[in-house]
């Protein structure tokens, strides 16, 4: 008789997360207006995208929303070759996980860039990208399905 050495298990939990008012508004504006909303700190003038409700530098609430227009550039990114467990739906490896800079925002937005491996390998910081929006938007960051190199 062998001793018991391994027990298999699984944890499945359901959540209903509240995004809070600031991210809630960001998601609503994505859904309703294909609009990227940021907030500006009234003390430091820094613009946060995605928006957050509190400025850690001024220690003040941030409520002043601003619309970000224009296409982003690549700040930094990595080509993901090993599919993570939560691989973005409808996307195959390799894809790029990227931090994107927008004119008018002082923080970066995390998103994905989808293109051929060759195009992804050629992308470098500063290169321009453009969004591909979903037809049916439901108020998540994936309402922008992904970004593509502007010169694709």
């Amino acid at each position, binding site marked *: 008789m062998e001793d018991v050495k391994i027990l298999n298990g699984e944890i499945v939990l359901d959540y209903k997360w509240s995004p809070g008012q600031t991210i809630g508004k960001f998601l609503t504006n994505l859904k309703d207006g294909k609009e990227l909303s940021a907030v500006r700190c009234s003390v430091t003038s820094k613009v946060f995208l995605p928006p957050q409700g509190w400025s850690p530098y001024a220690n003040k609430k941030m409520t002043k929303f601003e619309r970000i227009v224009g296409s982003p550039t690549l700040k930094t990114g990595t080509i993901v*070759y090993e599919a*993570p467990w939560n691989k973005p739906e409808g996307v195959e490896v390799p894809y790029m996980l990227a931090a994107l800079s927008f004119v008018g925002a*002082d923080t970066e937005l995390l998103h994905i860039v989808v293109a051929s491996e060759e195009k992804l390998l050629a992308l*470098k910081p500063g290169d321009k990208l453009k969004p591909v929006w979903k037809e049916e938007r439901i108020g998540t960051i994936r309402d922008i399905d992904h970004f593509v190199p502007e010169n694709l």
Partner: protein
Amino acid sequence: MGRKVAITGIGQTKTKLKRKDVNFSELMGEAARQAIEDAGLTIDDIDCVICSSSPEFFCGINEPEMFATDFTFGVMKPHYRIQTGGTVGASTGITGWYMVSSGLYNNVLVISGDKLTETSVQKGLSLVYSPTMGRDFAAGAPSAVACQTRAYMHRAPEAKLEHLAKIGTQMRKNALYNPNATLKLPQISEDMMMNMAWLSTPLKLLDSCPTSDAACAMVLQSEEYADKNPRPKAWVQSVSTIAEGVNYPDRDWSVPIALKEAARKCYAETGITNPMEDIDVIEIYDAFTSQHLIWLEALGLCDVGKAASQLIDSGATRMDGKLPVNPSGGVLSNNSIGGSAMIRQAEIAMQIMGRAGEHQVEHAEIGLAHGWGGAIQFHTIMIMSKEKEIKDSFENRKKRKG
């Protein structure tokens, strides 16, 4: 400053990637028992226990300290758990220091560890991203560090993939002399590193740490008790734990401002003016090869953007170099997350005590232990010396160097 504090006992669990022979609590208990014995103390001598691990999703038990209490000498004693992600082991050691330095307790046992091999680590790591913003794209730790590495290589064009291969080889060679390293690759070479498949560009498979089951424990004693303890000791001279924001304005991923601030504070408190000259041995939290370049630059060991040439090509951080970094083989050779940042402190303490065996650095008088956690934004530093007063350790070094 508070009271003087010394590390007098160390425990590290047995070398093996998977510890199928023990459960979480037993693993933690193993390290705890070793540390108490190593300090020459008994359970009754310990007046407070801090027993920590990384996020609960890794071991799959909520409040794992609940069961671990029985095994870690916490019964009928103050027993705490803290949690700061990858830094948790270092934060636990630093919390122990605060407990003793503040005068609250005289003999504190700190333990930190985890069993990472029992679930999908990257799944757990992706769960640290916000569910309403970011988790959609979370691809574990490698992708975040890959972005950081890409940013560094863009800022410091001299840093190439070959440097990452050199670092990975250097660490795995060091690990061969450390009985507690869990990943042993005698066949390691720069070619082997370069020939690995991409994990997440510019990182290849062996640029990453392994996942291990490991725990580490230490006994910290106040000056009054440490002076009476004949065991070798390492005196803790300065500690710092600093956090950056997760996504703050004008962030440069390759410049860890929290680490720079932690270093500034600890150097000022200890009188270190030129870390390359004033420190004998360093252990950094190098979950990925590229972090040698980023963390060591932030610690002020080289000119900005010159870590690859000044620290790696020059051989400065090798075992026979001017300032050996990670004689243990680092996190690249053993990563349980929960235990990893405390192991950095324990390894420096062992070096200072002259008890590091085959991976001992000659004349280790002053050492620095670093910890990293959060997304890429928590940093800790602990500086130790052989002498109770660090000025005496500086003096010893001066005499030796003539």
